[in-house]
């Protein structure tokens, strides 16, 4: 049996229900584990042991008195430092919000609290979720638990690394262009980004509002389903959240009839630049599905080759507007040398933002500026329509699309330091999904010869989470990639 800190929510639930474990014991184990390894991993920006233990004690008291709040009661969930938890720091890994304490709970956090989850710590990330390696945090680097010279991916690198290192059982991240799926792949865990609108964005500090979505980092597909059922649902405070019947992905997994499915392989996702070891893992996954009765179809998504420029034009434009609120006036860093109304903004922002955030705000300001709006921003929005239509066409023929989650395994820290464009281009498998608002997940599907995890991506049609979760669980239950753990 794995140590407690490497077990799934499902296994821990059984132990709690059988009286073999208390939430307090579990919390103590996670605190000890994070004390033992986090100086090497750097997943957490903030941990409050007293508060976490008090939450665990409250859950144990509820269970003892028969008032348990459900399957997640007493389960710790670690939170990316971009989601508001009342009374806890919310820094977005930025100097701009270094001293900020959330005065309210995000929509998904209210739901976790209502179900008795323990909110466990604040996880490192790229500043304001801008990056693919968690190297843009103003405070610290996070290291990949499988090879601490490599990045955990990003921007939810703290979330993925904490779960992979056994410092958390599960974590929430956010995914604007792949920021849950790519770190999940790099760290050998399960990452799910549901359909845009499934989860409230209220209390998620906005980067690119038309693309941002909360996602889950877990050890298993079943755990992802549990957590998603807990946080999906309409919220009047996010007018883009979808008003739909309550999800039951747990039941969808339990009741999977193993029907054969049609899986599409888009040639555009297997082009030049794909690491041969990643390719080999994809080939093995395709063979698995074929041998389990699925039909594999070649498809084409002709416009996804433009997804990276389209994404970086739209996302930075939205960011330049969203981040205008960080102005040094009401709740952010304020420059001490500011002495008039204008340099209060420009000096505070110069001191408060890091290089990548400045770069993206500048790019977004440029593409929205007079004379360039039509040629860049509006044109990008039109090509976004074409990309969406490519997926709509493909999903008339297939039930899911299988691709790598990233073109390479985790890369060394600092590999793209001087070349932001090279890092942008590494997001090519995940970005088109956000532009189309579709659900997708990343699932461990193998290891390289040097022991780095490889992740595959399954993309579903809009609101088709159940279908890709079922397909993923079929693969997961026939393999043990997600039971392997790094040596720390």
């Amino acid at each position, binding site marked *: 049996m794995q140590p407690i800190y490497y077990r799934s929510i499902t296994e821990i639930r059984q132990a709690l229900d059988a009286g073999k474990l208390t939430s307090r014991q579990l919390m103590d184990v996670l605190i000890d584990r994070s004390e033992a390894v986090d100086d090497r991993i750097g997943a957490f920006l903030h941990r409050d042991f007293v508060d976490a233990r008090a939450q665990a004690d409250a859950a144990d008291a509820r269970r003892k008195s028969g008032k348990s709040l459900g399957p997640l009661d007493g389960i710790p969930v670690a939170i990316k430092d971009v989601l508001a938890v009342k009374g806890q720091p919310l820094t977005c890994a930025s100097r701009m919000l270094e001293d900020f304490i959330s005065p309210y709970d995000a929509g998904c956090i209210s739901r976790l609290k209502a179900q008795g989850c323990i909110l466990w710590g604040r996880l490192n990330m790229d500043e304001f979720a801008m990056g693919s390696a968690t190297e843009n945090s103003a405070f610290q680097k996070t290291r990949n638990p499988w090879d601490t010279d490599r990045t955990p991916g990003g921007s939810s690198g703290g979330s993925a690394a904490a779960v992979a290192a056994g410092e958390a059982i599960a974590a929430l991240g956010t995914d604007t262009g792949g920021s849950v799926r790519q770190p999940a792949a790099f760290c050998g865990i399960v990452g799910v980004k549901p359909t845009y609108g499934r989860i409230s964005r209220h209390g998620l500090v906005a980067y690119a509002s038309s693309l941002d979505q909360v996602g889950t980092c877990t050890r298993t597909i079943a755990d992802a389903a549990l957590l998603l059922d807990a946080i999906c649902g309409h919220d009047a405070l996010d007018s883009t959240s979808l008003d739909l019947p309550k999800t039951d992905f747990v039941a969808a997994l339990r009741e999977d009839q193993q029907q054969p499915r049609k899986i599409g392989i888009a040639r555009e996702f297997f082009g030049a630049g794909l690491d041969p070891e990643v390719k080999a893992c994809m080939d093995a996954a395709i063979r698995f599905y074929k041998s389990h009765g699925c039909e594999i179809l070649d498809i084409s998504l002709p416009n996804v080759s433009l997804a990276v*420029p389209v994404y970086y034009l739209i996302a930075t434009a939205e960011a330049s507007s969203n981040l205008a609120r960080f102005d040094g006036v009401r709740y952010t860093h304020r420059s001490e040398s500011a002495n008039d109304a204008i340099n209060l903004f420009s000096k505070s922002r110069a001191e408060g933002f890091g290089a990548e955030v400045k770069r993206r705000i500048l790019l977004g300001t440029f593409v929205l500026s007079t004379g360039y709006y039509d040629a860049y921003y509006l044109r990008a929005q039109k090509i976004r329509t*074409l990309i969406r239509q490519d997926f709509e066409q493909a999903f008339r023929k297939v039930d899911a699309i299988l691709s790598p989650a990233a073109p390479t395994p985790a890369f060394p820290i600092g590999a793209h330091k001087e070349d932001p464009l090279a890092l942008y281009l590494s997001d090519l498998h995940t970005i088109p999904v956000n532009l189309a608002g579709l659900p997708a997940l990343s699932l461990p599907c193998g290891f390289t010869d040097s022991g780095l995890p490889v992740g595959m991506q399954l993309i579903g049609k809009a609101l088709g989470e159940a279908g890709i979760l079922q397909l993923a669980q079929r693969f997961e239950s026939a393999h043990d990639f997600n039971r392997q753990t790094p040596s720390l």
Partner: protein
Amino acid sequence: MDIDHIARLARIDLTDAEKAQFGAQLDSILDYFERIQQVDVAGIEPTAHAFAVENVWRTGDEPGDTLPVATLRTMAPAERDNQVVVPKVVE
């Protein structure tokens, strides 16, 4: 890209070193992004949201608790008499 103009619009003071570095990086990024100019987008509607939800009205919009002034006040970098203090705006 006129980096001085854009930095002014974005309200970010840049050092000379940042201007040189960001200017060069953004120029090479935009060079790469030029490939979007080759696509025929005639007659294509722009997508602002993957699933456009329109005319969302709040139901039962009753007055409720708002964030306490005391909390908001303590978040401000400088405050006095229940107000946020900023440098002088008009002479």
